[in-house]
């Protein structure tokens, strides 16, 4: 099993190389001439040539490509215009914010969605099933940002139960020096429990938004997959041997039904990590998505390119995890 996992890990390398290469080509094809960003409008051709020389744009393409690969391998994506920091520093600062929101939201979505799907499957074609299906259809039809706005309107504007969408901490609270970068973990490590509670409260609305949006497809896929598992021969055997319903559903059927659910969660996670742009913008969440949006608005190519590579690598890592989970859950995969 370990060997198989290492094998998958090796496979991720060419995928990552492909992503990096495509990013390079795309930037050269559609990125425009970066010289224009540095040169004043009245610059002479001589000055432009000098700028091109300095930026390395005068070199042949393959040389630029190799230099670019070397930079990427060192996680050097250049300097961002808007923050004047190394792009990799920016991204590393923002990554934990996105992960914290994504993992909480998706975790919550799975925690509710999977049991809901199981419940609908075992009550198939009866009232609870219709309720779950109607509810999840609505959840899938509604755009995530709209769910977020409605939650803000109800729970912040109207009821005042939760704080406003101003990011990871209330404005008056000074963020701690990052240790892991995960706000809740850092504050817990520092033992600053009053700020910890405030940070948790900030996290609730965006995480619930993500949970609602992800719970719906998770519940639907779980239901479909469970219905199939419950009709299988091995469940009939387990019934015939006298097992109770809970063992049948949660031990024997669910483990078989989980594979498509895990794939789906992987896709959802990839989307969130690759920049839940709208979600982060609505809640002022200082994550990768918000950074990407600012980079686009400011024509910050270095930042954008760094973001694309980060997002793609996160995607690759996510699916690597999905593959590993497959191998752990389904013994048949170990021999494939």
């Amino acid at each position, binding site marked *: 099993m370990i060997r198989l996992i290492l094998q998958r890990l090796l496979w991720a390398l060419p995928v990552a190389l492909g992503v990096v290469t495509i990013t390079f080509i795309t930037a050269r094809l559609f990125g425009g001439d970066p010289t224009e960003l540095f040169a004043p409008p009245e610059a002479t051709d001589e000055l432009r040539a000098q700028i091109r020389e300095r930026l390395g744009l005068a070199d042949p393409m393959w040389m630029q490509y190799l230099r670019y690969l070397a930079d990427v391998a060192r996680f050097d994506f250049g300097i961002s215009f808007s923050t004047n920091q190394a792009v990799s520093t920016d991204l590393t600062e923002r990554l934990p914010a996105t992960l914290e929101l994504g993992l909480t939201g998706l975790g919550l979505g799975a925690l509710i969605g999977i049991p809901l799907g199981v419940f609908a499957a075992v009550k198939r074609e009866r009232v609870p099933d219709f309720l779950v299906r109607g509810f999840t259809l609505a959840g899938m039809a509604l755009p995530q940002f709209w769910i977020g706005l409605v939650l803000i309107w109800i729970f912040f504007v109207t009821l005042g139960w939760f704080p406003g969408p101003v990011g990871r901490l209330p404005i008056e609270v000074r963020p701690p020096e990052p240790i892991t970068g995960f706000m809740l973990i850092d504050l817990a490590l520092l033992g600053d429990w009053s700020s910890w509670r405030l940070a948790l409260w900030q996290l609730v609305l965006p995480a619930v938004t993500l949970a609602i949006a992800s719970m719906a497809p998770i519940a639907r896929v779980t239901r479909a997959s469970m219905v199939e598992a419950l009709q299988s*021969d091995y469940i009939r055997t387990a019934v*015939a041997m006298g097992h109770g319903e809970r063992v049948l559903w949660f031990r024997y059927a669910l483990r078989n039904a989980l594979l498509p659910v895990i794939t789906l969660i992987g896709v959802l996670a990839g989307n969130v990590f690759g920049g839940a742009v709208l979600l982060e913008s609505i809640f002022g969440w200082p994550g990768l998505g918000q950074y990407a949006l600012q980079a686009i608005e400011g024509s910050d190519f270095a930042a954008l390119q760094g973001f694309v590579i980060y997002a793609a690598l996160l995607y690759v890592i996510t699916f690597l995890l999905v593959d590993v989970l497959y191998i752990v859950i389904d013994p048949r995969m170990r021999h494939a």
Partner: protein
Amino acid sequence: MSSPLLEIEGLSGSFRSPNGALTPVLHDVSFAVPRGTVTAIVGETGSGKSLTALSILGIQPPTFQRSAGRILFDGRDLLTLKPEEMRGIRGRRISIVFQDARAALNPVFTVGRQLADVHRLHHGGSASRAMKRTIEALRAVSIPEPERRARQYPHEFSGGMAQRAMIALAALVCEPELLILDEPTTGLDVTIQAAIMELIGDLVRERGLTACLITHDLGVVAETCDRVVVMNAGRVVETGTTEAIFTRPRQDYTRRLLAASQLGETPEMIEA
């Protein structure tokens, strides 16, 4: 002699199609399985023999709708039991060996774990004791290296080995009063079929089991069974001792079935 362990009386029913139309499949099926005997239910595919067997345990397909009949087990009508009561019967008192054992075992749990789970369900005790008993059961059905085999998954078993494990589960881990065998050798190689039937015969004789063998293979019946119930198109055609059925069949259908199994191929069997 005491009353039969199992009596099926006037079982009738139909399959309901999605549009609500009913197709009758069982017509007034009645037969008895006396204690300590092996009773065969023979018939071609579609004769209703498997459906009848699955109905005993209440695991018939959900589209089957019973219209009449009783299934008396040890004097109680199983069809009137509450779900919890029925669960107390399943595995503990009536158990079943299915046709395709590799599909009948759960693909994502080890074979040992599945058997041990059932052992703990019926006999309690610790997980390690259940696993010990499971390995003993696997050894009793002549699975080589049972300790190693118990740690393997169903897809690592051949069809014949999986069927041995299934028999260990249904007959030895469960220790039922009535063992149902639903086409236990169908789909296996001929030599494996013979070995599995020999195993079943040995278990039945050694442990004095009451068993109900569903099969379309009359050759198997002659060696193993005491009594035979012949079914055709959802009806019981003839019942009797194995000797009577084989030497003095009264019904034309039984005669044709006998002739078919001896000749190997006749139109009826090919159709089936």
